């Protein structure tokens, strides 16, 4: 029972991380039709900014130091995402092959640049002590950082839902996901919302980057790109453009990965997720939400 509970909570924590990354990917593809292979570097940029700022605040106690560094990381990651849209993606709208090439190229270039400047070894980040400890529930020792991951993802989910349902920009994004040309035919410059969606996607991915740093207490050049692969799978399973579909898919993928790794064999978690993707694509080609894909 305690093992199952542990696997469930850690699986939900993993799912929370996937959701944070995948939600931005999903909105970006749904609204703009852009497959953003550079999404992982928003995590890398946030993580390295966090580490850099944290390393410069040596005299400050760990908790405020981490919070200040995380905030700096999120700001830089969000601005970086917005600039990516403005400078690289905007001139290439409607040119899908070029978009894929430029986002793949950007991901490779940033990873190489980070490696060239700070090396390929992981850099250690001092995280607040409580996050490295465990809380015992029904005999299961649950790592505390998982609670933060789950709670943050829930807050982001509600914030995104509120943005999409209660603001005019959210209305434009939801309508644009369905029919971008018709939004334009209502007199709305839909491209203005593209930058905003990219920034929101970058912020959500950056939050995932902060949480991953909290979990691993390190940053390394590859961490963004490795996480984003599973986020793409989550997006396809959830249904492109659907935040709720993405949330359900992230939970399922996180749990399947954890259960398979423990109950089947270590390493089978990744394979199980790919099998799950295949099943969903055959049974529901448009994903769980039934939109797009």
């Amino acid at each position, binding site marked *: 029972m305690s093992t199952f509970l542990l696997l469930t909570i850690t699986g939900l924590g993993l799912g929370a991380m996937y959701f944070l990354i995948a939600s931005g990917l999903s909105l970006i593809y749904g609204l703009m039709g852009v497959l953003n292979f550079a999404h992982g570097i928003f995590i890398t940029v946030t993580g390295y900014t966090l580490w850099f700022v944290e390393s410069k605040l040596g005299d400050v106690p760990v908790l405020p130091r981490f919070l200040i560094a995380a905030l700096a990381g999120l700001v830089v990651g969000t601005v970086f995402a917005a600039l990516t849209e403005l400078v690289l993606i905007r001139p290439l709208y409607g040119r899908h092959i070029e978009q894929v090439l430029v986002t793949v190229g950007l991901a490779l270039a940033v990873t190489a640049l980070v490696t060239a400047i700070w090396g390929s070894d992981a850099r250690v980040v001092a995280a607040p002590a409580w996050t490295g400890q465990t809380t015992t529930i029904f005999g299961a020792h649950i790592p505390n950082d998982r609670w933060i991951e789950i709670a943050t993802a829930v807050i982001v989910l509600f914030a995104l839902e509120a943005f999409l349902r209660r603001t*005019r920009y959210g*209305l*434009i994004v*939801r*309508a644009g996901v*369905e*029919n971008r*040309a*018709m*939004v*334009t*035919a*209502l*007199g*709305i*410059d*839909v491209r203005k919302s593209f930058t905003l969606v990219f920034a929101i996607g970058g912020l959500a991915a950056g939050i995932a980057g902060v949480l991953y740093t909290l979990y691993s207490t390190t940053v390394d050049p590859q961490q963004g790109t490795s996480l984003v692969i599973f986020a793409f799978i989550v997006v396809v399973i959830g249904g492109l453009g659907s935040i709720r579909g993405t949330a359900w898919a992230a939970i399922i993928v996180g749990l399947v990965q954890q259960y398979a790794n423990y109950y089947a064999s270590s390493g089978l978690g990744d394979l199980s997720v790919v099998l799950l993707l295949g099943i969903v694509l055959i049974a529901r080609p448009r994903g769980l939400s039934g*939109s797009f894909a």
Partner: protein
Amino acid sequence: MALLSIQDLHVYLGESHVLQGISFDVAEGGVTALLGRNGVGKTTTLRALMGLVDRRGTIELAGDDIQSVPTHKIVRRGVGYVPEDRDVFSALTVEENLRLAERDAEPQYDLVYDLFPELRERGKQAAGTLSGGQQQMLAIGRALLNDNRVLLVDEPTKGLSPLLVTEVARVLERVSELTTVLLVEQNLGVVNHVARDAVVLDTGRVVHIGPAKELLADKPMIHRMLGVG
């Protein structure tokens, strides 16, 4: 002076030369019907006027060239659009669809709800769950929310029951008292009821321009140009 003037308009869709240099004017006020058999380029003409497809030629709105103006700016200059397949946002509620279309400081909800009281009653309903007729009401209502100089309406009676066709014709008549309408329509009864002028297209070219009633009274011409009657 014509409110809308189209000169030598060309549109290519892939390899197909859909509009082959069409020219016609839309006079201010009333309804101008754009007629023709299926596939002659009527919908493409409206999409070209809206800037939704690449086009070449001259398009003037009240003397201003809008040929190279992006779609959202054309709309803001007072061109409303009701597309052929309604294109309401199915995941949004009726209210949200209308709210999205607001661009004037004082959107004309009174007019819209006066014409289509059902839209008020179904405000919280997802547009995707409306019937075809209700979706058409929403598509027209969305365009009427703002003060347009000209309204481009594409086959508003397509797929509707005879009762709803009559209702749409009544609405178009009322709308034509408020603004200029360029109407693509296959139902000649509706055209006869509302249109003042008619422009007939055939294989991407204009083959007739004249008063709608004269055209519709000439059965051999109708048969030759539209394949009906």
